[in-house]
């Protein structure tokens, strides 16, 4: 089994599993019915993508673990998601700004992944790319309206951006996994995504009259299983039903 490929698939799957779960926390709590549906839809898309990535991960690992097993039976230190996606959902502005930053990164990353040399991985990336285009459209249109909106919406959107921006450095974290996969033509070098991502995000933020903060990026660790204090609590909620009834089906 290819260890770097397994690692990459966990990273891709965990990003979407955790972000999907955070978005799903809006279900029943949306500011308006239509947004409740929109965020739940986006959450379902993300979890669906996660299922594809994790299922392939289990196949690559070759030890009989499927997507469910990987999602519900790994502990916090075995998760490989970006730290940014495990942060609590915050207010509506926080969720939408995070969605914008993640979708902009996914847009370029998945595009490059879809051109990789493994057909199964490229196929999943192509499907996720299509869904992500809609997520980007939704998030960018909302961030523009919040930023270029009322005093309150602008303040909340700017506060969200101020808090989220330092977490975006981790998008471009690179280690031996990325090096090997880029060398094999399976995945892009993370740094090649930086410029296009910045251009895409800056275009939206400018129209939203929002300004990214200056200052250092936060320390990273998600890709190595080091997470914030939030992930453990989230996984406890997410995994409790499956762990209470192992092997159950319905």
């Amino acid at each position, binding site marked *: 089994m290819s260890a770097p490929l397994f690692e990459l698939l966990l990273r891709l799957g965990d990003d979407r599993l955790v972000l999907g779960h955070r978005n799903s926390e809006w279900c029943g709590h949306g500011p*308006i*019915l*239509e947004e409740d*549906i*929109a965020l739940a*839809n986006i959450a379902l898309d993300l979890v669906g993508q996660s299922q594809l990535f994790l299922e392939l991960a289990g196949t690559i690992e070759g030890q009989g673990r499927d997507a469910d097993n990987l999602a519900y039976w790994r502990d916090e230190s075995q998760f490989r998601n970006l730290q940014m996606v495990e942060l609590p959902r915050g207010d509506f502005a926080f969720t939408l700004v995070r969605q914008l930053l993640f979708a902009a990164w996914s847009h370029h990353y998945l595009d490059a992944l879809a051109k990789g040399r493994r057909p199964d991985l490229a196929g999943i990336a192509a499907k996720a790319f299509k869904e992500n285009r*809609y997520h980007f*459209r*939704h998030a960018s*249109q*909302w961030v523009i*309206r919040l930023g270029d909106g009322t005093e309150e919406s602008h303040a909340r959107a700017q506060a969200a951006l101020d808090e989220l921006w330092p977490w975006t450095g981790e998008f471009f974290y690179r280690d031996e996994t990325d090096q090997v996969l880029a060398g094999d033509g399976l995945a892009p070098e993370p740094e090649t995504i930086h410029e296009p991502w910045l251009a895409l995000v800056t275009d939206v933020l400018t129209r939203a009259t929002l300004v990214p903060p200056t200052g250092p990026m936060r320390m990273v660790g998600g890709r190595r299983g080091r997470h914030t204090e939030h992930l453990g609590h989230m996984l406890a909620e997410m995994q409790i039903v499956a762990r209470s009834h192992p092997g159950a089906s319905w």
Partner: protein
Amino acid sequence: MATDETKVGEWPLWEVFTQPPGGRPHEHAGSVHAPDAEIALQNARDAYTRRGEAVSVWVVPTARITASTPSDAGPFFDPGNDKAYRHPQFYKTPRGVKVF
């Protein structure tokens, strides 16, 4: 005449029309609330196209729709019902012509 009945604190209402696959006309699917056209389009897509029912979506502000009222029904529609000479029903459809 259409009146703007937006309640304070509520987004305007939009009517949604979706076109099913196969080239048939757009049909009324329901309504959504939205602050503007782009968000209305997205909300319509999220609410009414989840099960593959649509290849195209139209949204129209409800206030821009002019509709006949139930009391119009008599004068508007009854006269058409008893005039058979207005209907093209005395022709034999040639073989091979598809009738919808």
